[in-house]
């Protein structure tokens, strides 16, 4: 049973009088526990697809079904609840809140959760430990390196234990060594059962993905599944 289903997803943007097709009739399905890579050249519609998958951009037509929920049939507030409960976002430029410490940034998704302060703190500390930032938890973002900021962003995306992690070019602004560390971290998470959808333009990252889809001019032109994907968990 597919965890994510994209059915004929089309997204048009109105640019002045012109209608730009960012996505055209994209159909795909992703299993639970899969590490999906979305690749393609600049302007191919990768980020738009991630945005549509993440419940942030309504498609012009088509359906996005995650865990049997047609997410764009939800009201705006229910869709916000869905994002909070199902999705974790890692943004291209980390997008940490500059005046909050690493731990407070990680706590952000829990600020509106109905759990005790002690439990929130425990979850945040645990995930910071997991990404190797326990000793940097009280630092502000500008006091952290790019790789550390990225790991804070990953911790924030994971703190509410979402079934699906969405990452938009998480290694885009990092050097190769730090990129390797981040990809290893994501791969470890995936090995533990975390479903991940990641946008990247770097073909070197393809080796980490179970499934890769290639976009060009908003169309899905290629789909590949790694041969050893089903032996990964062993």
């Amino acid at each position, binding site marked *: 049973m597919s965890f994510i289903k994209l059915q004929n997803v089309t997204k048009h943007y109105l640019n002045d009088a012109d209608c730009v097709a960012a996505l055209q009739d994209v159909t795909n399905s992703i299993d639970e526990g899969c590490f999906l890579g979305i690749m393609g050249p600049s302007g191919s519609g990768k980020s738009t697809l991630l945005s549509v998958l993440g419940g942030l951009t309504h498609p012009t037509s088509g359906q996005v079904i995650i865990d049997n929920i047609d997410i764009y049939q939800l009201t705006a507030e229910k869709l916000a609840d869905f994002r909070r409960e199902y999705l974790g976002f890692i943004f*291209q430029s980390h997008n940490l809140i500059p005046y909050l410490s690493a731990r407070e940034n990680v706590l952000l998704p829990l600020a509106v959760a109905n759990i005790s302060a002690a439990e929130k703190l425990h979850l945040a500390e645990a995930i910071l430990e997991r990404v190797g930032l326990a000793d940097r938890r009280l630092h502000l973002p500008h006091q952290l390196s790019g790789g550390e900021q990225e790991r804070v962003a990953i911790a924030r995306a994971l703190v509410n234990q979402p079934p699906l992690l969405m990452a938009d070019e998480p290694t885009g602004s990092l050097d190769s060594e730090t990129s390797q560390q981040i990809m290893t971290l994501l791969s470890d998470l995936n090995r533990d059962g975390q479903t991940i959808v990641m946008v990247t333009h770097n073909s070197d990252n393809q080796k980490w993905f179970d499934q890769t889809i290639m976009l060009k001019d908003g169309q899905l032109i290629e789909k590949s599944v790694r041969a050893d994907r089903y032996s990964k968990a062993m």
Partner: protein
Amino acid sequence: MRLEHIVFHHLKRCKGRAAFLVIGLLIGVSTVVTMLSLSDALGRKAQHELENFGANIVITPHNDQLELSYGGIQLGGVNLVSKEISETSLGKIDSIPNRRNVAAIAPKVLGVIQAGGRDVMLMGVDPGVEFNLKRWWSIDGRPVAQGRELVAGALVAQSLGLKLGDQLMIQNQQFEIVGVLSKTGSQDDQLLISPLQTAQNLLTKPGVVSLVEIAALCHDCPVDDMVKQLQTVLPDADVQAVQQVVKTRMHALDQFRLFAWGVAVTVILIGALLVFVTMMGSISERTREIGIYRAIGYRRSHVLRLILVEAGIVSAIAGVSGYLVGVLATVCGLPLLEGGHASWQWDPLLAAGAVIAAIIVGLLAAIQPALRASRLDPSEALRAL
């Protein structure tokens, strides 16, 4: 961690903006507090001074005849007073609902006596009340205190050649002139003034009075209501408000208050505009941040709360500090305006009102920016995605 923590951290980080907002509202609130405190203090002082001009309610024996005099000029007719007012009935004044507004009750008995070979008007008064009420009386000597003492009006003293310490024979009784009034330009210049009981004995009117003047403390007191209440308890007397004094007093105070409120509302509107513009600027700067909140699952109501709690905190700080600055300005300003005669009084209603009004104005001004923030499309706000 709760949403409020984010607000506190944001305020801590953006101290400059927060200070700007606080100062903007503070100026508004302090101006309002200063204007209202000043108007209140000056109003009370004016009230006090006006009350020193004397009575504002007069009780006279019931009389069906129209008075045929104006400005002291008699135009004929005989003013026959059918009956006097019983002194004992004055106790009923204490039973009216607005008795707390009664500052002084000044009974008088009037009559004509022979003194120094001439007819002179004698007025018996309660010395403790009367001389306190008629603050404008300037006495050479002292007020009457006991039985056989008199204070002479300026014209009477001149006409009878009386001066301080002179003895005057009335009905074979010797009286001492203990005081001479300076000229007042009123009927008081033509009076001999004695203690009430002395006059009642001389005029053979024991236990009655000719008229009663009442000074009502009229800071918002309903004089017309008091007149009706007095008329009810004293059905055999005519009770009249000295309308001109009362209405002039009220009009002057109302004008001052109106002016103060006009300034207050204008300044508050400017403060609200400042909050609105600053919050709109803040929302524009925080578009990306709000996009993050929305992307990680904050509802519109959560974003709305973030903005409104921040506006509420800033407004509350501005309200409290604005009130304190306003009080300080009032305390410092009063001596300059009134030479230290008017005083500031703690008004809990104004204090609470200033803080609550600041919060309401701050929240109202922040509603539109907050709604705008809550309606931001997360993907549009983020752009990174």
